[in-house]
């Protein structure tokens, strides 16, 4: 399930350091060895499995491209792709502005902000499964928050209506991951030299002007890093959605990763499931490359460029 993410990270590292690190290339060997054993070998296995018929129990039967043609012509695939991208884009659009603002806020040195930073961090300490179960209980239309507080607007069929269910997934994902991205932005903001802000205030720039003219441009690479993590990470959302909605109602929240699991481990169709796994890897790689392009190829730091 998580095969996509590490590959992306490795690919980036090796390409950006290859030019100037010939003499210390051996340092990459341990990581490379682990990556080969746990990343490349299973990936090749999955690729081979996508060309066989296998129920997980019996013998393997090579079938050529029939798994590929059956998956690619299955109306479930475009639907799952649509749901995956819908959740990816919406959760990015919700998380980025909120984590950016929270990160800037938390970068301040005031003591109460340090305390808040610790509190904001709490959701990151919880496992996705625990979060999903908790929200499921809170959102129960008959015994959940709405019934407990006698607030009718909270007693909706949250996980039983298509749009509401997608909204709930995005909300819970954001609730879980905004603290992490805030942390990245907090670090990014603290890297910005204070002299730039001092110069700006001498020039008469107010807070909002400073934010848009200094903070935001200086955070360009932080935004790209955080967005890459969000976008590629959203491809592997599985545990949270699996526990929260199990892909339902119907197939309204069945993202690619869930579709892969259901085909492979519930319907015993390992071949078609492997096809989807390969597609997931390809989409993840393409997205990571695209985001890298967007960031430009320069490796110069923000301060040097500014």
């Amino acid at each position, binding site marked *: 399930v998580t095969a996509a993410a590490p590959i992306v990270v490795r690919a980036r590292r090796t390409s950006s350091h290859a030019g100037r690190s010939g003499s210390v290339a051996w340092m990459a060997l341990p990581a490379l060895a682990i990556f080969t054993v746990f990343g490349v070998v299973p990936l090749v296995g999955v690729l081979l499995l996508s060309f066989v018929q296998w129920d997980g*129990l019996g013998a393997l039967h090579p079938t050529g491209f029939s798994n590929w043609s059956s998956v690619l012509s299955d109306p479930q695939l475009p639907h799952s792709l649509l749901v995956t991208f819908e959740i990816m884009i919406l959760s990015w659009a919700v998380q980025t502005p909120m984590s950016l603002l929270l990160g800037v806020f938390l970068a301040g040195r005031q003591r109460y902000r340090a305390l808040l930073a610790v509190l904001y961090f709490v959701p990151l300490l919880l496992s996705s499964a625990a979060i999903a179960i908790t929200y499921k*209980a809170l959102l129960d*239309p*008959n*015994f959940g928050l709405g019934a407990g507080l006698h607030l009718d607007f909270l007693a909706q069929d949250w*996980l039983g209506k298509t749009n509401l269910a997608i909204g709930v997934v995005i909300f819970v994902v954001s609730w879980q991951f905004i603290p992490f991205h805030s942390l990245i932005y907090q670090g990014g903001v603290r890297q910005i030299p204070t002299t730039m802000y001092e110069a700006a205030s001498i020039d008469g720039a107010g807070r909002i002007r400073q934010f848009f003219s200094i903070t935001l441009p200086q955070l360009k690479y932080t935004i790209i890093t955080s967005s890459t993590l969000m976008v590629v990470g959203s491809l592997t959302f599985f545990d949270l959605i*699996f526990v929260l909605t199990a892909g339902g109602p119907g*197939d309204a929240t069945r993202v690619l990763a869930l579709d892969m699991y259901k085909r492979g481990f519930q319907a*015993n*169709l390992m071949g078609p499931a492997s096809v989807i796994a390969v597609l997931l890897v390809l989409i993840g790689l393409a997205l990571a490359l695209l985001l890298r392009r967007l960031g430009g190829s320069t490796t110069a730091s923000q301060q040097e460029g500014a």
Partner: protein
Amino acid sequence: MTTSRRNFLRLSAGSAAMAAGLAACGTSGPKTTGGSSGGEATGTGATYWYLTGQPQQGLREAQVKRFNDANSGTQLKTTTFQNDAFKQKIKTAIGAGQGPTLIWGWGGGGLKSYVDAGQVEDLTSWFGENAALKDSIFPSAFGAATVGGKIYAMPVETTTPIVLFYNKTAFEKISAEPPQSWGDIMDLVPKFNDKGIAPFSLGGQSRWTNMMWLEFLFDRIGGSEVFQNIFDGQANGWSDPSALKALEEMQKLIKANGFIKGFSSITADSNADQALLYTGKAAMMVHGAWTYGGMKGAGGKFVTDGHLGYMNFPPVDGGKGDPSDTVGNPGQYLSISSKASDADKAVAKKFLSTATLDDASVDAWVKSGSIPVVKSSGDKLASVADKNDAEWLKFVYKTSSEAKVFAQSWDQALSPTAAETLLDNIAKLFQLSISPQQFADNMNKVIGK
């Protein structure tokens, strides 16, 4: 009370569901007894994997303990798993040749996939040698253990039909009698809704909960042959006129608000559907016999004060099905791995014949509120002291033993591939996002797969 794949935890909803979720994600490891090599099938002694969840877990532990105490030379090592985690883990382990000696399961399509892969031992001749043991078990329980005329598993534990539960207090509130026909059900729906009581509770997110409704409607409208034809691989079996009629009636009940608002958000693994019935928010519920214990344990005085009513699913006017027919789980099953060593197989067989349906086990199952799969369980019922339990057990025994056809749950009877497509389409049917005809078309494509 009896065990089934549906028998999710009946501890408090929160912690139980949390454990289930964690286990399903593989983050909480299984518990192994008797050494660290519980997962190996060969060379290290016989192994047995089974499900957690009380009271069944305690019963299984006691069985193993009795067996190990009585046979000091041949110890059985056990590993326990959460229900949902077990289903995937056992399949993967067997596929990798790491499965246990004794394979616990639900028979039917899942067992057939093991048989097709040559992973389980043919027990036909063993049952021939142990005719007395075979004769002591309900004959109906062997259906789901038989593949191609050969027996690959021993029915153990309990028989659990699906029944219609109702809350007597809710019926008093609208001064109505329990339904005697499908027409009565449709008439009761507006009456309950007017009083602010949901006619039926349903944990719709779990999908197989919805399936139980279709199992009964198919049977009552078209008779047991409708699903039998599908099971036998007859082309276009799902578009049988009776099947389409059943699907239409189903959607009629959904459109008439027959189920509690928000049923698609409710899961059976948190037992919220049972809670709706015993708190009086819903008047009726179609569910497995195994929920009796949960409602008795969690429902306060609901069961002990006699507010719980139950009946077999009523007939549909003009339907062809026999009203005595029932559906559910005729039993749970133990198979022996064909990959185990001969010594381990011998231990496993000894366990099957001496420790699974012995007197102590039968007594314990009856005491826990279940009917074990042995014929002698009828005689034990007289000794049950609790009046409510005795009445309930008599009802379950009567329903199981007098059923003309005791059909296995569809998702267990069909192959895993077809079952997943079925559950998927049932969820969409209950969402009203596909029509009966679309349901039939989608399902016809996986017949025989």
